[in-house]
C-alpha cells in the first residue's frame, strides 16, 4: 500500500496537472452528447478554458467546432493532461498512450474498477497502478477529476462553476460532494483554488494531495471529505505537519462502528474508529466538521475573517429574541458577550429607538427597521469596548414584508434599504477595524413570499461583494467563528 515508495522515482509535475496548457479528452462522442466525455468537453468549452483542447474518439469526425483525433498518438506535439472516459477495459492502454505522449497526469472518469468489488475490476485497477508507477500521475478512477478556476479546468457537471480563484481547496473521495461544494461556493461566497475528486484513489490520493496543497501558494484553507485513508501513519504525520501551517477542515464520513472486534483489554474495546478519528483530528489541530454545510460555513469564516483567536463579541439586531439565547449559545462555543461599559451603552441608546432598545450586549434594537445609519453608529460605539473583537449583526429582512404590505409599496425592494445596509456595514468595518458577520435568516418561506427569498439572496451577494461574511443563523455564525478561534488557539 506504500504509494510513496512506489512512486518516489517519478517527480510529479503538479503544475502541468492543475494548470495544463494542452488537454486531451478521450471518450468524446458526437453520437452521444450526454456521455461523460462529451459533457466534460462541453464544460471545458463553456467555462472558457483558454488552453488547447483535443477531443479523441477512434471514429474521428468533428465535435462542435473541433476536429476529433482518432488516437492520442495523432495529437500534434505533446499533452499536459488527459481526461479519460472510456470503458474500463480500455483505460489501461489509453493512459499508457497518454504517458508515452508526455502527459504529466490523467483523470480517469470511467467507473468499473475496485469499487465494483469484482475481481475483474480490481485487476483493471492494478493495471492502472502499474502504468502510474512508470511515470504518469493518475486521478481516479471513478471520479469527477479536477476543478481549478485559475486554469479553467473543470468537472463534467461544472460548466457554470466560477472562474474566480480563491483560498479554499477541497479534496474528496466523493465526486458528488465535490460538485455540491463548488455549487454552494457560488452563492455562499466561497472561492476555490482547487477541487480534486479522486474517487478510488488508485494513485494520487488524500495524503500526497494534502502535502501538495500544504505547499501550494494559491491555497490558504484546505477542506477534505474522507471515507478511508490508504496509509494511516503517513496521513497522520502529514496532516499534523500541514495543519500546523494552514487550517485543514476535515469531514470524516462513515464513522459508525463496524461490528465487534476481537479484543481482550478495555482499552481496545473502547478504541473504536470514531473515537480514534476524533482524537487524531484534535491531536493534529485539524478542524472537524460533521457535514458539508458546516464545512462550507467554516471555509467562509476562514476565507473572510481576520485569522486570529476570538474571545469577546457583540450580537446586535432587532425584532428577535436575541438576548438570552445568544448568550447561552456563545458560552457553549467559548465566546463571551461582554456587558458593554455604561458610557458606550448611553452612546448607543442615543441613536436607537426609545423605549424598547437595550444596549448592554446583546444589543436589541427594538425593531428590525432601524435605519442603516443608526446601525452603523451602534456598531462603531460598541467596537470602542476593547473586549469586543468581532460583531454579529442579525438582519431580519423578512419583517419588511409587513411594512411593504401595510404601506402599499409595489415592491419589497423599495422598503428594504439593503444597499445602504451593506455600505454601512462595510464602512463600520473600515472605521473600527473589527470584522462584522451578517446573519440573514429567512423564516418566511411560504410560496407567496418568494420576493423575500430574492431580496435575501441579493442582500447576501451585496454583503459578500464587500468581503463581509453572511450566514443563515446565529448558531451557524458562532460555530464558524469558534472553528477559526479554536484553530488559532491551539496552533
Amino acid at each position, binding site marked *: 500500500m506504500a504509494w510513496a515508495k512506489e512512486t518516489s522515482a517519478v517527480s510529479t509535475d503538479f503544475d502541468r496537472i492543475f494548470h495544463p496548457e494542452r488537454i486531451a479528452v478521450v471518450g468524446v462522442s458526437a453520437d452521444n452528447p450526454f456521455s461523460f466525455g462529451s459533457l466534460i468537453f462541453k464544460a471545458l468549452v463553456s467555462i472558457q478554458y483558454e488552453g488547447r483542447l483535443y477531443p479523441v474518439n477512434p471514429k474521428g469526425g468533428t465535435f462542435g467546432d473541433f476536429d476529433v483525433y482518432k488516437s492520442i498518438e495523432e495529437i500534434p506535439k505533446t499533452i499536459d493532461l488527459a481526461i479519460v472516459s472510456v470503458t474500463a477495459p480500455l483505460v489501461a492502454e489509453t493512459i499508457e498512450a497518454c504517458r508515452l505522449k508526455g502527459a504529466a497526469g490523467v483523470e480517469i472518469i470511467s467507473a468499473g474498477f475496485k469499487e465494483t468489488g469484482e475481481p475483474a475490476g480490481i485487476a483493471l485497477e492494478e493495471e492502472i497502478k502499474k502504468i502510474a508507477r512508470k511515470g504518469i500521475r493518475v486521478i481516479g478512477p471513478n471520479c469527477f477529476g479536477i476543478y481549478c478556476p485559475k486554469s479553467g479546468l473543470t468537472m463534467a457537471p461544472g460548466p457554470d462553476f466560477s472562474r474566480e480563484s480563491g483560498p479554499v481547496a477541497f479534496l474528496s473521495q466523493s465526486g458528488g460532494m465535490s460538485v455540491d461544494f463548488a455549487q454552494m461556493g457560488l452563492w455562499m461566497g466561497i472561492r476555490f483554488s482547487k477541487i480534486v475528486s479522486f474517487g478510488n484513489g488508485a494513485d494520487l490520493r488524500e495524503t500526497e494531495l494534502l502535502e501538495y496543497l500544504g505547499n501550494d501558494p494559491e491555497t490558504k484553507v484546505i477542506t477534505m471529505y474522507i471515507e478511508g485513508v490508504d496509509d*494511516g501513519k503517513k496521513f497522520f504525520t502529514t496532516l499534523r505537519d500541514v495543519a500546523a501551517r494552514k487550517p485543514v477542515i476535515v469531514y470524516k464520513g462513515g464513522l459508525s462502528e463496524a461490528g465487534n472486534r476481537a479484543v481482550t483489554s478495555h482499552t481496545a474495546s473502547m478504541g473504536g474508529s470514531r473515537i480514534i478519528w476524533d482524537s487524531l483530528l484534535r491531536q493534529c489541530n485539524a478542524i472537524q466538521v460533521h457535514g458539508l454545510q458546516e464545512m462550507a460555513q467554516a471555509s467562509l469564516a476562514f476565507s473572510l475573517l481576520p485569522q486570529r483567536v476570538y474571545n469577546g463579541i457583540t450580537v446586535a439586531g432587532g425584532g428577535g429574541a436575541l438576548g438570552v439565547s445568544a448568550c447561552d449559545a456563545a458560552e457553549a462555543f467559548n465566546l463571551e458577550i461582554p456587558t458593554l461599559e455604561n458610557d458606550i451603552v448611553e452612546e448607543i441608546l442615543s441613536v436607537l429607538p426609545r423605549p424598547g432598545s437595550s444596549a448592554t450586549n446583546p444589543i436589541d434594537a427594538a425593531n428590525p427597521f432601524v435605519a442603516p445609519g443608526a446601525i452603523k453608529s451602534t456598531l462603531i460605539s460598541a467596537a470602542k469596548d476593547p473586549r469586543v473583537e468581532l460583531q454579529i449583526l442579525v438582519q431580519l429582512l423578512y419583517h419588511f414584508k409587513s411594512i411593504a404590505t401595510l404601506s402599499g409599496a409595489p415592491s419589497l425592494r423599495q422598503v428594504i434599504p439593503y444597499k445602504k445596509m451593506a455600505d454601512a456595514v462595510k464602512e463600520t468595518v473600515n472605521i473600527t477595524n473589527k470584522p462584522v458577520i451578517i446573519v440573514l435568516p429567512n423564516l418566511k418561506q411560504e410560496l407567496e413570499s418568494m420576493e423575500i427569498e430574492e431580496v435575501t439572496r441579493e442582500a447576501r451577494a451585496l454583503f459578500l461583494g464587500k468581503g463581509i461574511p453572511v450566514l443563515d443563523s446565529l448558531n451557524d455564525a458562532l460555530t464558524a467563528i469558534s472553528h477559526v478561534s479554536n484553530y488559532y488557539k491551539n496552533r
Partner: protein
Amino acid sequence: MKIIEDSLQRGAGTLSEYESKLFLAEFGIPVTREKIVTAKNDAVAAAEEIGYPVVLKGSGDELSHKTELDIIALDLRDENDVRTAYAKITSHKDVSVKEVLVQQMIKGERELVVGLTRDAQFGPCVMFGLGGIFTEILEDVAFRVAPLTKEDAMDMMDSIRGKKILDAVRSKPPVDREVLADMLIAIGEIGLTHDRVKEIDINPLKILDGKPIAVDALIVLDKE
C-alpha cells in the same frame, strides 16, 4: 524483553498482573510494591517487608478477573489477616491458585485508566480516562496516536469531561500532571518499540499524595 519472550514461549496470551508491572516499571511507570509468594509464611514475610496494610491476590496467566473470581483480599492489617486471606484464596473451589501476589495497599480515592491499543490504520494509540468501574460506565476517555508529544499528553488530560478529577479535590493535592504526562508518553513508546505488546490496561491507576501509581495492570500479547 525477556518477560515477553518467556510468556510467548509457554503460549500465554497475556502477562500476569505481576509480570505486567515488572515490564511497565522498566519504562519508568510507577507501580505498587509487591511480591509473588507460594507459601503462607512467605506471604507474611512479604507483607512485613512491604508494610501494612496489604492486598492479597491470586496470581496466574489466566486469572485476569480477580474480583469476579473472588480471589482478592483487601486492606489486610496484620499477620492474622494475611494468614486467613491466604488460606481462603488458595482453597478456591473453582480455580486452582498456586501463586499469591502480596501487594502494597493504595487507598487513593481517585481512579484513572491508562492504556494502549493498536488501531488498524494508525497503529499504537494511547488511552487516558476515568478508571475503575467508571471506565465502562461513563466511557470518559481520550485517545492519542503514538508518538505523543508533551503537549499531546497534557491536552489529553484536558480532553475528558471529568478532568477536574486531576485538580485538588477534598483536601487532596492535585495530580502531578508532569509525571502523568511522562507515563502517557512512555506507554506510546512501548507501542512503537514493542510489536509483541498488543494491548495494555492500567486500571486502576490510583493517586497517592498527588502521584499516579499503577495498582492493576494487564498486558495482552500478540501471539501471531
